[in-house]
């Protein structure tokens, strides 16, 4: 029951409340379908004796309609309505003030994730992975860079639409450490199904460690392959779209690559983040995720090697 995208086993207060309502709706619906089916079949197969008059039969029928068709449904629907309103109330806002706010921006077809800096700390920008400390409510401010998306981490919270020109707010809280997978839940184009998001819930200490590591700017590469790779990155079209903090690359169209190696996947869950996949992705992004904005960059074999060596230093 703990499948990555399970909707009826919550791992946080929002999803748990919604799961309870979900179970109620599921059970009520099944019971109603079974009861109605049995009654219809029973009515259909019942033999009528010729002695009972039409009037008597109609009288009994009216009772069935009033009780079974009006009173019982009214009670069931009123209970369901009350349960729904109560659940919506309980999940609309966190019980205590959110511990932190994360900006999540939907792009075709990946998620930009931003943690505002403060004082001397720079804004941390990553992609497709939302790191949060366990046990505290996290406020998510959802916006879109292009079309309508929907942000959905089934085990943590139901869907919230991500609409261009509008800032929607959701909140999540993970009760236990773990990786919670999510998906875009509003059809947004060719690669809608390859637009995964991951919430990585970790202990407060681990979260702080992660944040500090993400705030670092990158160091100049020390080995010669990687140094050539940086030159390739800056000479080719990469830097038109990507940022690597601490270099001259400040593109905003694609994901920030400053700490690329720290991420689990490439291209919003399309590939595991391994050397082979990284090379394949750069060599031909269109074969892996047709229609995405990353073009195939003309590179020599040796340039691709150097580029991968450089990207692997972005810890």
């Amino acid at each position, binding site marked *: 029951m703990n499948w990555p995208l399970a909707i009826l086993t919550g791992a946080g207060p929002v999803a748990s409340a919604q799961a309870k309502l979900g179970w109620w709706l599921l059970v009520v619906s099944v019971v109603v379908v079974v009861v109605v089916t049995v009654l219809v079949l029973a009515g259909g197969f019942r033999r009528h004796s010729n002695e009972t008059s039409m009037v008597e039969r109609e009288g009994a029928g009216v009772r069935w309609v009033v009780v079974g068709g009006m009173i019982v449904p009214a009670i069931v629907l009123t209970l369901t309505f009350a349960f729904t309103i109560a659940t919506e109330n309980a999940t609309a806002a966190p019980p205590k003030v959110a511990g932190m706010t994360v900006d999540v921006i939907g792009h075709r077809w990946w998620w930009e994730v931003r943690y505002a800096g403060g004082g001397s700390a720079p804004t941390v920008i990553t992609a497709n992975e939302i790191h949060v400390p366990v046990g505290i409510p996290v406020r998510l401010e959802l916006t879109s860079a292009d079309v309508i998306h929907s942000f959905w981490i089934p085990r943590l919270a139901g869907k919230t639409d991500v609409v261009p020109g509008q800032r929607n707010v959701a909140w999540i809280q993970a009760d236990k450490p773990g990786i919670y997978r999510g998906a875009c839940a509003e059809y947004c184009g060719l690669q809608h199904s390859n637009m995964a998001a991951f919430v990585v819930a970790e202990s407060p200490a681990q979260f702080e460690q992660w944040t500090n590591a993400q705030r670092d700017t990158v160091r100049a590469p020390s080995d010669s392959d990687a140094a050539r790779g940086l030159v390739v990155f800056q000479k080719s079209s990469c830097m038109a779209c990507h940022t690597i903090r601490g270099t001259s690359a400040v593109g905003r169209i694609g994901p920030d690559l400053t700490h690329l190696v720290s991420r689990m996947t490439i291209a919003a869950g399309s*590939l*595991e983040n*391994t*050397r*082979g*996949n990284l*090379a*394949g*992705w750069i*060599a*031909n992004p269109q*074969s*892996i995720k047709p229609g995405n904005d990353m073009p195939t960059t003309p*590179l*020599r*074999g*040796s340039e*691709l*090697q150097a580029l*991968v060596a450089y990207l692997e230093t972005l810890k």
Partner: protein
Amino acid sequence: MLFVFALTSGCREASGGEEHVAVAGGDPDRGRTAIATFGCGSCHTIPGIATAKGTAGPPLFFWSKRTFIAGEVPNTPDFLVRWIEVPQAIEPGTAMPNLGVPEGDARDIAAYLYTLR
């Protein structure tokens, strides 16, 4: 057209039969897993590997029938294992990256590729 057909069908007969290139110490089933682990499929289309649909590198259909590796060396198990381990050692400047594949895994991968007939 007929001539081409006659030629290809002739080739098929000549190379037909159940000859199989064995790779010492290589296990095709383990090779299938290793191919997925190292991400070969993000560049190569490989029959029998559902996720291997890449087009950056050549497709590996009919691997056992290929004459050359990288157009450089003959397609023998020893060269193939070496190619998977350190492609640059066979063709300097190739785009195929050195993925740090250990020899055992390289043998498994090679064994799988030779099942592609």
